[in-house]
């Protein structure tokens, strides 16, 4: 029974994500989301009590989705350099297959902090994703592939770079496909973080 409810919640989040991406976060209403799923508005509230609650659940959903992918990479017995490449590939793959997810992260979560101030303090709602990035850094330093430094200087370099590239892609500024940049970006990030 719980699984069925969870499945429905995920359907709602996915529809909401698509509507947010096409119509914008503030222009999309709960009735719009209900309509897209042929649900009654009243029934929608059984799943999410408000749009703000839905917004917070969505960012957790994205974080869990990406966190799970990164965990699989972290658990592979490969070098830090290979992990770096795989994380970049995975991030760009998600940006291509589920652009609404990365779009939500960059344009809604990071830009509308007032929606997330209660219940998503600090990095609570992106915990799964950040945890895996931390483990990637920690294991890289431990095996002496990566240089010891402040976490945020490394995190900002890595995620800021990837977020910027996806943003440029979303603005149709990039002349090439995201995947065409993987080699150079892997080289740049690894060179910046490594002990070499």
């Amino acid at each position: 029974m719980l699984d069925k409810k969870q499945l429905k919640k995920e359907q709602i989040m996915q529809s909401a994500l698509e509507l947010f991406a096409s119509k914008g976060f503030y222009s999309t209403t709960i009735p719009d989301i209900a309509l897209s799923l042929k649900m009654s508005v009243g029934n929608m509230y059984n799943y999410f009590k408000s749009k703000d609650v839905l917004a917070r659940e969505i960012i957790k959903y994205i974080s869990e989705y990406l966190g799970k992918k990164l965990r699989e990479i972290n658990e592979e017995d490969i070098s830090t350099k290979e992990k770096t490449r795989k994380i970049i590939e995975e991030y760009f793959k998600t940006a291509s297959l589920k652009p609404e997810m990365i779009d939500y992260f960059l344009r809604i979560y990071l830009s509308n902090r007032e929606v997330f101030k209660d219940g998503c303090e600090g990095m609570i709602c992106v915990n799964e994703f950040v945890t895996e990035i931390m483990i990637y850094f920690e294991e890289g330093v431990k095996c002496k592939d990566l240089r010891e430094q402040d976490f945020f200087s490394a995190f900002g370099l890595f995620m800021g770079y990837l977020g910027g590239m996806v943003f440029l892609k979303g603005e149709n500024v990039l002349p090439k496909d995201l995947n065409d940049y993987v080699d150079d970006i892997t080289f740049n990030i690894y060179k910046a973080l490594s002990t070499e």
Partner: protein
Amino acid sequence: MKNKMRVLWLSAIACNGNTHAFLNYPYMEQFLDDFEFIYHPVIDSEYSLEDIVSKEIPCDILLIEGAISKEFQRADVSVVDIIEKYSKIVQKIVTVGTCATFGGIFRESGYEETSGMHFDQDKPSQKFQDLIDKTISVSGCPVHPEVLVNTLYAIKKNAALKLDNFLRPKEFYAYTIHNGCTRNEYFEYKVDNHQFGKLEGCMFYDHGCQAPFTHGSCNKILWNEINSKTRAGLSCMGCTEPTFPRQNLFSTKKNMAIPENLPVGVGKRVYLTLAGISKAFKIDRLEKKLIDD
């Protein structure tokens, strides 16, 4: 006359720190009413060290302090030979302190093949294999006198002590030093903000405190019945563990912000999840002195 247990305190390669810590036991009179030292390095005893090595004096418990090497002698006899002789006649052997248990600081003494009695740091030693069933380890640098005395009373009363993998009584070593630490509020909310000697702040995050991954009862059974390192404002140095002494005791080894040693039994993902939640909140009360004059 009261039936006292007869105890031999044998010092191997040691600084006598355990001997001195033992002298702070607050109920010594009662202890000496129940136990008698046939030999002790600083307490008057019936026999001299020469008597101990040249004869076989009846004895119930052998206490060994200090790291052990075949090369090291007492009264011109190898400590290994003294141990072998008395181990045959005693009921129990107790390795007193971290050097006798794991090698400790004196593992670096320069004597050939120096180690603890049954462990060379955390590796089982091949020496004294036949004595494992007789041995109880009470590690610490020095050992807490109450841990030693209570272990001796357990032997006297024939109480079955459950031991951990290093032969330490679980009664005292199943806990961590973190258990009972008065700074736990600061640990919970990840507030280090500590200055040595001051009463506020957790020392785990920056100041090298090893309490969350060190086994012992220092914050449950207080030293001199009043204090512990962490209560007094000094980080736990992990002195009961086979890894003692580590280097850089006053700074926390971290890899990109994650402490290299995490609390015992806590997985990295669990730790990071909890840390992420705690760090999201700033608890003003814990950021400043509690009693601010």
